[in-house]
């Protein structure tokens, strides 16, 4: 793993922007193969995510995946969420993670939780 990328992961782990809770809707996901668990809290108003937080038992990469995802979705319409993918979230600096299926699963834990919401909102539409 590239050093700069690793530092980035560790920095976000030690200084998370979105860790915590709010009183919004809860969605959860678990990686059964490694025991990681995440809960995402979403405050939604007029189909728009106005605030999001996450907590749980996460490795640094799962934490990183949640941080980047929440960076992206806060302020977005629920209907726009389907365009999110790991390659975009990771960008150039984290592209190497795409080649590592085991750790990519950690990174995508938050996205998997979010999928639940997506399918629920699709059902509504």
């Amino acid at each position, binding site marked *: 793993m590239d050093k700069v990328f690793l530092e980035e992961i560790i920095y976000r782990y*030690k200084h998370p922007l979105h860790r915590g809770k709010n009183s919004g809707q809860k969605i959860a996901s678990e990686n059964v193969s490694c025991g990681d668990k995440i809960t995402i809290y979403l405050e939604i108003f007029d189909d728009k995510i106005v605030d999001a937080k996450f907590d749980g038992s996460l*490795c640094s990469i799962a934490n990183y995946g949640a941080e980047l995802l929440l960076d992206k979705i806060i302020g977005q319409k629920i209907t726009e969420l389907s365009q999110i993918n790991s390659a975009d979230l990771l960008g150039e600096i984290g592209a190497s993670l795409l080649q590592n299926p085991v750790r990519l699963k950690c990174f995508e834990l938050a996205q998997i939780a979010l999928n639940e919401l997506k399918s629920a909102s699709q059902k509504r539409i």
Partner: protein
Amino acid sequence: MNRSDFPIFDYQPDLVYLDSANTTLKPRAVIDAVRNYYENYSANIGRATYDLAERATLEFNSVRQKVADFVGADLREVIFTHSATYGINQVAFGLRDFLRVGDVILLTEYEHNSNIIAWQKVAAETGARVVFLDEKPDLENVKIFAFSHVSNITGEVFDYDEITAKVHENGGLVLADITQSIGRTKTNLKNYDFAVFSSHKIYGPSGVGVLFAHREVQEKINPLIFGSQTFKKISRENVILADNFSRFEAGTPNIEGVIGLGAAIDFLNKISMNKISEHDIELTKYMTKQLEKNGLMQFLIGAPTTGIFSLNHPKIHPHDFAMLLNQQKIAVRAGRSCSDILMQKLGLDRGVVRASFGIYTTKTDVDKFIAGYKNAIERLAD
């Protein structure tokens, strides 16, 4: 010890390989033996009569004797399989007819998943029950007792002589999973009915394993697959299976793998198992001392007496340790290490960081691991 015998260190001089409980690195002697088969006599065995095939057959058969001698078994008790996992499955499913509704299959909570799942499946088919030792069962109904001789998590040695004796008294059978012990200590099969291991954990190729099945109980297990080399007589209507190990070895075996295993055993014998065991014990003591000195004992699981150490930090994810250690070319196992039942018992859903030794492991490797582990704590803990 013997680091120069392992070519991987020529290519990766900085590698700190601490995952030998997962699989061992391969010495030149093993690599050469496999290559030599491919280059010089890569014929099938037991069938053709030309020189090449005879040589291949001879080399292959000689390994059976080597394996038998290595653990003090009889040549006829050695069955080549694909892995420890396959051996366990062969015994478990081979005993379908032996098991009845209500029989107890006794396991320990320390077992590798391989030594649990096959039994659960056979129990479901036969109406037998899987019970774990920490449930303190009555030993009377135990028809099978299967246990690992050395834990792949805690490096602790378990003999279970008393339980073995009781199970035998009641007409039950005992399987020892010697996968983690056979390359670390001199093996004594005692009066176990069955024992299994994988070649790749004792410096040989993967894809080969051995099942020892004691002469007196061998006919109790039925083969799982059938094919060439397994029969004595065949007609349009019928087939009579061979009455020895051949009936368990259907089809062309992993010839080069078995030959590689033979080379691995020669290699271990040349060093001597006593020396290997001494080295393992010395490193185990050294590691324990270093963990103590560095205030890390609080994270250690169990009390290893062989070179397998699992650590659990309450805050830091095992994968994160592995990631940071990997940056320093230190290879460790992280996660539940195929021991889900034990991890559940310990409440360690995310598993552990496991450092395990091989004959090439040095005190410097241990020092690097300790430094790397401490560094990871400094970097990741709040």
